[in-house]
């Protein structure tokens, strides 16, 4: 009986060692990639953060609620759309273009921004025009610091902010919701007010994508839509700009958009608000409770006309 012999494959059919080693590495990498979304992504760690002024001692909204109930229309109109889709936004590298009526225009890289401006924690109330509110510990620095750094020219009166307009990042149902990029504006004295900050983090962490990573505006006495997310451009201008929501529905959204329980909105009752973390409804305060700090900015103005 002839002993059985293993068939010897021709040399051209033998997989080279390098290839099958690569395949193992590839499978291991796939496993790691599957596990990765579960881990908090910290592209850039934040430098030292010190407690800042104006913080409230009210109960804070949980991180879970603040990161899963978001208005970020670039990623869709539903409250959970940003949490589902904002991972597509690549925030590293990122730079903010500063131009218009400034002494030193140019692009500022996120690393430079984080290195140049000392970070503070500011625990602010956030009141949305949709009549809900949160209390959020932001990490950021006064917008006034950045404006001082680039030098505002004397003829500048307003600050225009722009988000991103890469529509391929947006889910299909978000692409035509508004004119992109999202635009917002502040009068120069509002922009220079010490309450106004550029936030780069919250809850002690780098800003989550769905909350406007890597850098967003926070103006606590105005409705939330003024606090533009994922800023790409800051322009100092002479004329008052038109913000995105104002352009879409001027009867509903004004340029100032100060929190004001007396000014009626056709869609939401502004006299009261729901604190999302405890489910309770409370009375809305004029200027979201920051009247002592900001009311003087609007002396002599009819706020029912300049809403």
């Amino acid at each position, binding site marked *: 009986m002839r002993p059985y012999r293993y068939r010897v494959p021709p040399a051209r059919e033998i997989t080279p060692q390098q290839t099958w080693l690569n395949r193992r590495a590839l499978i291991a990498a796939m496993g790691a990639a599957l596990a990765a979304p579960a881990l908090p992504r910290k592209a850039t760690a934040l430098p030292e953060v010190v407690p800042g002024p104006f913080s409230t001692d009210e109960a804070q909204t949980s991180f879970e609620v603040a990161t899963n109930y978001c208005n970020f229309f670039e990623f869709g109109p539903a409250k959970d759309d940003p949490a589902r889709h904002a991972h597509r936004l690549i925030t590293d590298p990122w730079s903010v273009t500063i131009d218009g009526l400034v002494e030193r225009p140019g692009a500022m890289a996120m690393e430079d921004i984080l290195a140049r401006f000392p970070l503070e924690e500011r625990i602010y109330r956030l009141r949305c025009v949709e009549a809900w509110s949160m209390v959020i510990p932001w990490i950021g620095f006064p917008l006034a610091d950045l404006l001082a750094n680039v030098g505002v020219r004397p003829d500048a009166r307003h600050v225009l902010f722009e988000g991103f307009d890469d529509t391929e990042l947006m889910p299909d149902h978000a692409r035509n919701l508004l004119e992109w990029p999202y635009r917002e504006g502040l009068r120069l004295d509002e922009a220079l007010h010490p309450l106004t900050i550029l936030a780069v983090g919250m809850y002690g962490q780098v800003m989550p994508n769905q909350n406007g990573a890597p850098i967003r505006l926070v103006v606590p006495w105005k409705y939330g839509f003024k606090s533009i997310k994922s800023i790409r451009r800051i322009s100092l201008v002479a004329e008052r700009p038109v913000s995105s929501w104002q352009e879409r529905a001027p009867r509903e959204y004004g340029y100032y958009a100060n929190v004001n329980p007396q000014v009626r909105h056709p*869609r939401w009752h502004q*006299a*009261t608000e729901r604190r999302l973390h405890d489910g309770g*409804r409370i009375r809305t305060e004029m200027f979201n409770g920051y009247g002592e700090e900001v009311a003087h900015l609007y002396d002599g103005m009819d706020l029912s006309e300049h809403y």
Partner: protein
Amino acid sequence: MAPAPRWRMCAPIWAISAVPGIWLLWQWRAGALGVVPDEVLLHLTGRFALGFLIVTLGLGLAHFLTGWRLFVTARRPLGVWCFAYALAHAAIWLMLDQGGIIEFALAEARAMVHVQLGLAALVLMLPLALTSLDAAPRAMGFGAWKRLHLLVWPAAALALAHAFVVSRFASPLLSVLALAMAGLFAARLWGWWRARR
């Protein structure tokens, strides 16, 4: 074969109509409605009510086209369930959205058109729900009962207007619903016109 008794036909309709509500309750208790469940409860009960409304309105036409008695039998239970979901919607608004604070709810009802439209639709549906037992048409006379139940049309118009006011972006689903309702109303008008000749 004798026709099945009415309750034997109605029971499955009642059971099926309860499914969305039971599913929603179960999701709520399981914590599956996201980080702000009150809002999901509010929105979904409103949608359920609109869904049952359009189906209820469509059954008359479905009966006319097919001649199946089942469609007529199903109409009253589905109408009652439409009212039940609308009532749940209003109760969730009052107890969860407004935090059960009557003063806030009254202020919002005074100020906001969508609340007024929704409450008006609910009020119009109340007599229809109250006269939904077999005894009602017998007691008040079938003609009067039928005339009373024409209130479903203004109630539907108010509910639709309510939905349009609360939606910020153009909703294709809502437009389809409006077209369907307009179509059904036109069919109804045509039916009356034909019956008169």
